């Protein structure tokens, strides 16, 4: 402590500190007990108290300092307040917190400080102020032995003869360095002390809180006891009064009847005496009557027993309830209701959630009971079953739950004294089940894929995440190379690199966290993959199991109307494909039979289903008809075709749809021959179309990279 008090003023860089105790005792950093902070930390009461003390400075030698605490001298005043405050606190708390030091210790502290201050300033002068002696004769060297600057002359002849000396400059330099070093140390010390002080501050607060609570607790309990006692007293007093009145009344009754008896006796005596003075005849007459009456009276037993005891019958007073109350003061209170936490994102799995809660810091809890039940959506009236578990910790992983389901959780804490009230109810949700990718519906091209999946969950989920991993032959580990998050619907268009093979997984996400991965689906970004849309297929067409062979049987086209003519081709025996909605280019091939009549090409989604391919502006196609052993090729759009003769009938037709250059080209794949190119601005997305005008079959080939011969067109 001494060290610290001594160092603090040095750091304050006050060139000439006034050596008053008040100024000197700023060993706490000023910010810390800044008046505002203090107001927050300590109840107002104490400040007021301090104010009173300031008004009547009867605390002996502290009075002058307190006097300085008037607010006109801002800086000084403020520091004073700080000091004064601390002193005050210390005084107040002296008895309870000896650790804070008695006033006596403070005294010592200050003395020590004064001493230290004095010494340090002496040292300071000793090193730094040689100039003061300039007027007489300048000291030019430094005596290391005596640590003072001296004249060189003295070293040779004077009292410093033979002492070790250095150049004054060097000495000054060294001294400065040392001071700097010390200053660094001081700074560290200051930081340390600041930290320590803020720690103390926290301790203050904690003590304040803890004791406040305990006070409340005591007050509560003692009041309860006092109330109970008062009540018991009242009861007893009342009972006592009752008893007294009862006894007195009884005795009084007895007294009255006793008096009556007495009167009767007296009367009888008098009557007998009167009779004795009468004539004999009279006497005899009356004596008989009298004797009867007397006999009768004497028959009546005179009760002289006390009907009640004058004593107070000793009654035991039952203090058991009071004892219980007394005991409960020292026993731990029953815990408060725990605070149940809201669900931590991504903490759940499909079948489990991790529930967390917390207790009040001063509660003693032996165990918790965690209860839960599924949240019913109101519509179902059936009572959902409730479950409970006992837990020691303030968290628990509840397992065996249903995926993507909300559960309501609440918790109670208990100890030997009792059970807390119920906590608030918190709703947790289990992670969803993994989605199911519709592998057969995946559409892809060289740069993208359209992946669709089933949610796999009854309830809606928040979003889906796609995980992609490139399939590398050399490295078969499936490292997820890309994730796409926050997909709101059950499909996503993902951008890919050409010529690769990917495994794609989907996870469903809700508040609880992500589901497990779905089963993977494979995507190859070589060429374009589409599938035939059976919903558009003319009734006479059938599509093979693998989805790529289109067959028209021998059956004749019936004239019956097709019901769902909105989507199905009803006149042209055609089927439409579903191409990924990505511009750029797409290439596919169709295997045909030479003598067959077919049309292959593209059409807008909204092509008239009652129309023919190539008949209007919404479709473009290559048409082949075989009439009297002659092949006729047409390239139809808007019902017109250029006149084109092709000498080698293609067996496999390559179709290149290029949105970038607005072209649709047809090739004879086997001989790499370019057949025709439509140059029309393809404003909208178009779909592959295939039709068989006579019985036969077409086979669609997907996933073919663009042949070199097609790249020119």
């Amino acid at each position, binding site marked *: 402590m001494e060290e610290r008090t001594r160092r603090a003023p040095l750091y304050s860089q006050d060139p000439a500190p006034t050596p008053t105790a008040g100024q000197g005792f700023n060993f706490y950093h000023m910010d810390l007990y800044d008046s505002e902070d203090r107001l927050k930390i300590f109840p107002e009461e104490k400040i007021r108290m301090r104010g009173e003390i300031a008004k009547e400075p009867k605390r002996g030698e502290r009075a002058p300092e307190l006097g300085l605490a008037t607010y006109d001298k801002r800086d000084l005043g403020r520091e004073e307040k700080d000091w004064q405050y601390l002193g005050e606190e210390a005084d107040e708390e002296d008895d309870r917190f000896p650790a804070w030091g008695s006033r006596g210790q403070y005294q010592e502290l200050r003395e020590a400080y004064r001493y230290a201050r004095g010494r340090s300033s002496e040292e300071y002068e000793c090193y730094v102020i040689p100039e003061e002696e300039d007027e007489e004769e300048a000291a030019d060297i430094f005596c290391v032995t005596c640590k003072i600057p001296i004249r060189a002359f003295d070293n040779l002849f004077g009292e410093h003869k033979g002492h070790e000396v250095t150049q004054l400059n060097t000495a000054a330099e060294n001294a400065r360095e040392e001071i700097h070093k010390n200053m660094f140390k001081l700074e560290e010390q200051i930081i340390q002390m600041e930290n320590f002080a803020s720690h103390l501050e926290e301790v203050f607060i904690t003590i304040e809180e803890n004791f406040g609570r305990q006070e409340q607790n005591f007050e509560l309990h003692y009041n309860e006891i006092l109330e109970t006692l008062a009540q018991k007293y009242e009861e007893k007093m009342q009972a006592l009064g009752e008893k007294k009145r009862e006894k007195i009344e009884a005795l009084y009754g007895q007294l009255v009847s006793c008096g009556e008896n007495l009167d009767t006796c007296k009367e009888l005596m008098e009557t007998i005496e009167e009779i004795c003075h009468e004539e004999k005849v009279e006497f005899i007459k009356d004596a008989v009557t009298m004797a009867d009456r007397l006999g009768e009276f004497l028959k009546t037993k005179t009760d002289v027993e006390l009907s009640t005891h004058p004593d107070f019958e000793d009654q035991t007073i039952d203090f058991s309830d009071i004892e219980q109350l007394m005991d409960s003061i020292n026993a731990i209170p029953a815990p408060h209701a725990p605070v149940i936490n809201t669900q931590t994102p991504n903490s759940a799995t499909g079948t489990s959630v991790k529930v967390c809660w917390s207790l009040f810091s001063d509660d003693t809890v032996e165990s918790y009971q965690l209860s839960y039940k599924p949240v019913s959506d109101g519509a179902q009236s059936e009572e959902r079953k409730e479950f409970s578990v006992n837990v020691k910790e303030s968290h628990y992983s509840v397992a065996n739950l249903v995926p993507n389901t909300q559960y309501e959780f609440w918790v109670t804490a208990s100890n030997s004294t009792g059970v807390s009230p119920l906590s608030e109810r918190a709703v947790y949700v289990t992670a969803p089940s993994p989605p199911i990718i519709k592998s057969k519906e995946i559409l892809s091209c060289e740069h993208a894929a359209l992946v669709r999946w089933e949610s796999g969950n009854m309830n809606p989920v928040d979003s889906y995440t796609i995980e992609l991993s490139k399939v590398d032959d050399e490295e078969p580990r499936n490292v997820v190379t890309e994730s796409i998050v926050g997909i709101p619907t059950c499909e996503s268009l993902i951008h890919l690199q050409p010529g690769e093979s990917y495994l794609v997984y989907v996870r469903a996400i809700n508040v609880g966290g992500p589901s497990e991965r779905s089963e993977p689906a494979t995507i190859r970004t070589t060429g374009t993959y589409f599938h035939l849309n059976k919903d558009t297929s003319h009734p006479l067409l059938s599509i093979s199991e693998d989805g790529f062979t289109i067959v028209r049987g021998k059956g004749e086209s019936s004239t019956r109307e097709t019901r769902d003519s909105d989507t199905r081709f009803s006149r042209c025996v055609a089927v439409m494909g579903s191409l990924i909605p990505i511009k750029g280019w797409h290439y596919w091939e169709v295997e045909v039979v030479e003598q067959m009549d077919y049309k292959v090409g593209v059409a807008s989604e909204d092509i008239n289903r009652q129309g023919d391919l190539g008949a209007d502006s919404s479709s473009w196609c290559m048409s082949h008809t075989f009439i009297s052993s002659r092949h006729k090729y047409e390239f139809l759009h808007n019902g017109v075709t*250029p*006149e*084109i*003769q*092709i*000498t*080698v009938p293609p067996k496999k037709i390559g179709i290149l749809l290029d949105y970038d250059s607005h072209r649709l080209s047809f090739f*004879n794949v086997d*001989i*790499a*021959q*370019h*057949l*025709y*190119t439509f140059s029309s601005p393809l404003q909208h997305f178009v779909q592959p179309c295939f039709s068989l005008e006579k019985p036969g079959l077409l086979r669609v080939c997907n996933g073919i990279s663009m042949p*070199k*011969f097609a790249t*020119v*067109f």
Partner: protein
Amino acid sequence: MALKQISSNKCFEGFQKVYEHDSVELKCKMKFGIYLPPKAETGKCPVLYWLSGLTCTEQNFITKAGYHQAAAEHGLIVVAPDTSPRGCNIKGEDDSWDFGTGAGFYVNATEEPWKTHYRMYSYVIDELPKLINANFPADPEKISIFGHSMGGHGALICALKNPGKYKSVSAFSPICNPVLCPWGKKAFSGYLGTDQSKWEAYDATHLVKSYPDSHLDILIDQGKDDQFLKDGQLLPDNFIAACAERKIPVVFRLQEGYDHNYYFIATFINDHIKHHAKYLNA
């Protein structure tokens, strides 16, 4: 074989030039146009030979066809020779527009007085390529040929008589069956004599019948309003039928409303350049 540059004009970052040289085959001075694409400045390029039609010189194609942009894009050197020897002082050489000067028919004449000079077939398939390969950054392995009308006939016979020499061939309104058309009959009888069996060696429709290899992709554009088509000078149907029979791949496009001139050529020249680029740049 010294070359003399007649003109040079920058065109689509390349150069359209005209040279003159002394032809050994034709024994006269011959001019040809050559387009050097920008790519030719850094490396060897495929060469596409253009054979013009009756009455044309090397100028018609290079000034009217508008092929430069496509050729620059695909990096093709395009060589356009003249259509016949000139100034050989042969009697009657300038008498008619469809015979003699400007009407060499891409044959090697066997009859007097033509047989000394009129050796356009050898000039086109032999002398000119050697000259080009020797003086320009040309890839000798990659050559193709196309032409118009009489030049179309020339392109077809050059390709069909030299299987594998040309990567591809195409033609605008070619004279497909000259032995059966008035122009052909006049020219062949003049250059080759009266023995019609000799004519068949220069007749595309006949040549197809003996063409050994089907790996020749032929593109033919024909204007539907071409007067010479109606006059029976071109006879494409005969050629197509022969090709269909022999499974020689031909795409024959009859273009509605077009006639025989260079406007028609200019309209479809890009398709033809692409057609050749597909093979030359493969």
